[in-house]
């Protein structure tokens, strides 16, 4: 799949933002006043910034507002609904906390739940696609959720929880990579795609068009796979191992936290790039790929 920068930015930043919002909603860290204001600003910039980045990926932005309609059937629509709901609920919590020094515990807990549900709905957009076997696995939702929890804990200054989540996440990522490699296209072949397997093995004799098209650009992306193993190592080391080690082995102050967060962001971005670039869509079979 084409690793569009807008979608990588969106899933990385908004996941982190909603993760931080979830912690703030639960009163972790128990900040008030201007410190709380700074924390909430960061969370909103990440969450809303990510959402805005995802809007730039739409080809017909003027209809984006209609995306809230089909929450009964569509995970993308549910994501929109939950994102707005969590931002609104957390805004009530944040305003009460920052300006009136009142901690609305129930509102905060509800906001935290909504924030994590938003991340879950994002993961389901990918998980639901049978056409992309590497995404259509049980590991996808916990991976997205652990990114939000681990990254959110880093930002919220919860070193133990951050380390545990990130270590768990590292193992889950490796597991997903290995099972994803083994799964390949999940038994779908050029023969099942065309029904011509009864004659014999198949080969593309002539593609349907000589130039590029939307399908090839979007769903038969090949760049980046070459360096897959290196990117996996980079993602593991910087995304999970280094921040987890910093959180466990050093006394956490602002500098270590900043290094851990930047390293985590870099690693996650590399991993997200792979999440898209490595994901093979079954329709590439019609192009003999």
């Amino acid at each position, binding site marked *: 799949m084409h690793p569009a920068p807008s979608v990588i930015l969106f899933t990385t930043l908004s996941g982190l933002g909603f993760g931080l919002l979830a912690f703030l909603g639960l009163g972790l860290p128990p900040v008030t006043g201007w410190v709380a204001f700074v924390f909430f600003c960061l969370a909103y910039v990440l969450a809303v910034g990510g959402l805005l980045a995802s809007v730039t990926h739409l080809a*017909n932005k003027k209809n984006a507002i209609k995306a809230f309609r089909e929450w009964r059937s569509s995970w993308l629509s549910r994501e929109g609904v939950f994102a707005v709901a969590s931002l609104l609920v957390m805004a009530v919590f944040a305003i009460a906390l920052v300006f009136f020094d009142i901690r609305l515990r129930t509102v905060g807990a509800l906001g935290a739940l909504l924030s994590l549900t938003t991340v879950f709905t994002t993961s389901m957009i990918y998980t639901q696609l049978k056409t992309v076997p590497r995404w259509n696995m049980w590991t996808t939702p916990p991976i997205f959720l652990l990114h939000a929890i681990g990254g959110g804990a880093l930002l919220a200054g919860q070193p133990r929880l951050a380390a545990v989540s990130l270590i768990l996440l590292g193992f889950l990522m490796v597991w997903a990579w290995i099972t994803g490699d083994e799964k390949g296209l999940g038994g*779908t072949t050029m023969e099942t795609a065309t029904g011509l397997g009864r004659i014999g093995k198949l080969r593309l004799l002539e593609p349907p068009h000589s130039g590029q*098209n939307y399908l090839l650009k979007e769903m038969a992306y090949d760049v980046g796979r070459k360096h897959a193993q290196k990117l996996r190592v980079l993602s593991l080391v910087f995304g999970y191992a280094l921040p987890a080690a910093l959180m466990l082995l050093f006394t956490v102050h602002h500098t270590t936290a900043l290094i851990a967060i930047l390293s985590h962001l870099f690693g996650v971005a590399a991993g997200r790039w792979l999440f898209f670039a490595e994901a093979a869509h079954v329709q590439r079979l019609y192009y003999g790929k």
Partner: protein
Amino acid sequence: MTSLPQSTETKLGLVIDLDTCVGCHACVVSCKEWNTSNYGTALSDVDAYGAEPQGTFLNRVNSFEAMPESGCSQTVHFPKSCLHCEDAPCVTVCPTGASYKREEDGIVLVNEADCMGCGLCAWSCPYGARELDQIFGVMKKCTLCVDRIYNENIPEEDRVPSCVRTCPAGARHFGDLGDPDSDVSRLVAARGGMDLMPEMGTKPVNKYLPPRLKDAPSDATLEATHKTPEGLFAWLDKALEKL
């Protein structure tokens, strides 16, 4: 509403005969011609006369070489467009309700006034039947020529999808696959019509008729036909030997 209808009694669709298709791409051209000037926005081309032309098409023809264990390979031309699936994943993933399946005849359509161009429906389609128009930014797909098949302003023989009307080989058939007695259903039953990627669980309405088995073993044509010279060639052969 992007929920799918429980079931549709009428299932309009295409039956494509892979035995007959000659790979001329006339259906591709006629589809583009009809659909660029009728339903919805035009099917745009980018850099049409330049070095890297590309454009939106609703129907494309791939050509495959099927290689049996022994004997000659077989060339199969393979037209592909939306299969108007009964369990169409492209419909349920749509967040805006632009993508829908008609209850009255099962045709899957995009309401372009609602499409936001997110491309998720194209991701969910196993067949590559949806293309996001690069200029208009909305999702385009086969409409089964919904603006022809019910159109009383055109002669009755033209009230079939443009690709079907155009096919010079008679490789494309249109009808109601929900009616077991329709011509298309009987054709599917007689020729062992098949689904593409049945494992995806999409239950496509369109069916493909497999190429017929060759009536003579395909490797027979590979045998040398003149092993020993006869007649004039035998005499020439002898005469040249003596020289």
